[in-house]
């Protein structure tokens, strides 16, 4: 199963990279989201994936009796997901603003006239 996840990580990264290299701001944003997902999967994979053993102590027990999934990567990913939502939502609204001003989502049209002289 790990190999399948590794393939998934590769595909997510490749797609993300391809999308952020495009001129459209929407694609840039989608690319960033995919890169985030790829990174989350990579961190998830590092913690020795375990099936069906969530890190939750059963009722009545005080410590684990059985093996359980590593909680640390999960905590890290949870933080990452939430923070990336902050970034994405802000970027989406910014995109809307830019679109309202210049009527395009083409990154090349964001350059100021002075910069175009270079």
């Amino acid at each position: 199963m790990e190999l399948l996840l590794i393939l998934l990580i590769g595909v997510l990264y490749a797609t993300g990279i391809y999308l952020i290299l495009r001129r459209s701001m929407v694609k840039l944003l989608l690319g960033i989201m995919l890169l985030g997902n790829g990174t989350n999967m990579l961190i998830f994979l590092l913690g020795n994936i375990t099936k069906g053993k969530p890190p939750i102590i059963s009722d009545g027990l005080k410590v684990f009796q059985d093996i359980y999934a590593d909680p640390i990567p999960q905590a890290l990913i949870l933080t990452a997901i939430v923070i990336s939502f902050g970034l994405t939502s802000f970027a989406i609204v910014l995109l809307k603003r830019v679109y309202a001003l210049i009527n395009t989502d083409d990154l090349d049209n964001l350059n100021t006239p002075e910069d175009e002289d270079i």
Partner: protein
Amino acid sequence: MLFTVLLGLITSSLIVPFGRFVKTKWGIILAFIPLLLFLYYLQYIPLISWDKSYVQHIDWIPSLGVNFDLRLDGLSLLFSLLITGIGTCIFFYAKSYLKNDPYIDRFFGYLCLFMSAMLGLVLSDNIFLLFTFWELTSISSFFLIGFNNDHAVSRKSALTALSVTGLGGFFLLAGLVLMGNIAQTYSISELAEKAQLIQDHELFPYILGLVILGAMTKSAQFPFHFWLPGAMKAPTPVSAYLHSATMVKAGIYLLARFFPILGSNPAWTYSLMIIGGITMLYGAFHSLFRTDMKGVLAYSTISALGILVFLLGIGTEDAIIAVAVFIVVHALYKATLFLITGIIDHATHTRDLSVLQGLRKVLLPVAIAGFLAALSSAGVPLTLGFIGKDLIYEATLHSEQHVAIYLTVAAVITNILLVSAGFMAGIKPFMGTLPEKFEKINMPAKSLWIPPLILALLGVLFGCFPHIIGDWIAQPTVNSIMKVKTDFHLQIWHGFNLVLLLSALTIILGTILYFINKPNPRKLQWIERLNFIAPLTIFQKAYQRIYNFSTSYSNYFHNGYLRSYLLKIIIFAEVLLAYQLYLGGPLHINWDLLSAISVYEVVTVLIVFGAVALTLSTASRLTAVVATSVIGYGICLLFVFYSAPDLAMTQFTIDTLTVVLFVLVLFKLPPFLNLAKKRILIRDVVVAIVFGMILSMVAIRVLHVPTHIAISEFYGKNAYLLAKGRNVVNVLLVDFRGFDTMFEIIVLSIAALGVYSLLKLRLKSSEKE
């Protein structure tokens, strides 16, 4: 001694708040600062003897060997007297010269700073202190040269001077540090005691080269001389100060100061003789073709500096005596000539020698000063210049047998040319008939013509009584350079000998040359044709090349297109990661450790792949957004399969919210345009696939690295016992790492505020343009 260095620094900082005071007539008080210092240093003349020097030791950064050590010996005293003495004349003169300048306060600020830096330089006994003041002279002279900062030429000259002398400063620093490391001391007087150790070290040639390069740039030696004629764009008092007594003499001071440490060996002798020899001939030759008075003076200054370096190279006792005397000779006559140039420029508004003549009828005292200075520069008997020239010939004739004849010939030719240059600047403007347009000229203010006259008269006074200079100034100087007691007395008359014959020959040929060589703009044009091989041109071309290179470099990396930045960063990261993977050896997969695969997972991953394909291929933004969210839900499912219920819930919520936000904001947008060319598309696809593959390989490599589960075990064990929670991930976030989560909430709140204010923001119609 410390106060003499600090006085100028304090004054220049006081001028910032009290600048208006300088603009009134009371500003003349500033001129008493150098006068006071001059008188202070005069009292040391009888006190300094060959083995006695005055030391002031102040700890600065003792742990690094950087101390504020000042030492006054004969050599320092000579320079201190010149800096403050000539400085006094310059200060008085400048107050009148720049009377109507709105920035005269600024000017005096720079001038005080510069004077302090020069004094600090010649008094320093620590190499780092010396270097600090060395750089300070470069920086303050930059402001002085570029004082007329509304002229582009002026700014450019200042920048050239700063870059050349600053470059030399780096060389010097490297040389000084090497020297200090070898001798294990940063004190100059202690270095002198370890001269043999330094000279025997294998790095000695580099040290010598670096120190000489530093001195060459500062003292305008060929091929670094070109900043000096450019520096003539400065107001005339600055030129007079910088080029007669101070700035350019700093290099000479440096060589004299390090003579006991680096001198007296063939490498020193020959390199300095060659550099100085070329410079003195080159400068003297070029001075013939100039029509601008300041141009003539600039090139004759270069030539005079060449003579000094040349003499330091010869390094015999005769030569060092000649150095000590010639420094004084040159400072006196060159300052005078510069100052009268300033007066003429003020009165006639031109410095063109082909136009100026007959001015003696309207500017008599100025003419007397110019005349005397020209005679001193020509070395006519009864002037100090005569003594100086005798000593130079004495030194070349008594140098090593097989080179003496060449050295003497070079010195005689240089001096013949310099006689002509001196006459050109000091006599030519005053001779002949007065043109009508100059008849209305009035005598300038006393403070303008008295300083040059005093300096010129001093030249004659010392010429008639040379023992004043010889016993009081030159002898301690020579003693401190040679580090032995010497006993000599300067005389006006040496009897009939070869030196006298050479002197006479020099004056006669020089005078003839002066009458033949009339200043003419056409000759200037002729010499300018050779500009393409001049060091200045080469420097400018090199500068242009470097400039073009850095422009195209930054244009390539900083072209204003986000994707181009990203592409470069990604490719760089790929190369680094690939190299690291390559170092790690071949990849291998341990099939036994892999977990089993089930249908659900395969189907989920396939759905994700489908969604990825849809995201890439669709032309509709909405479809792309929805497809991306499908990818998110797929990952959410994987979290469910692999025991991460919290992650699954978060991912689900966040993904849903993102899609809602996207759709709300973007549903009006037009479809994607296919803007990229095919070639670019292929390039991006290749870069992206390579990156994906590299990351997959990294993941495979990481897969078999055992994880340290001690931390996880700690949390697992203590989640309930310490924190009373059963969901370990939650306990971790809100309890064990509670502060992290709190800050995360703050970050999210800030993002939320940003989103809210952007949504509420209403632009005025004018801002929409």
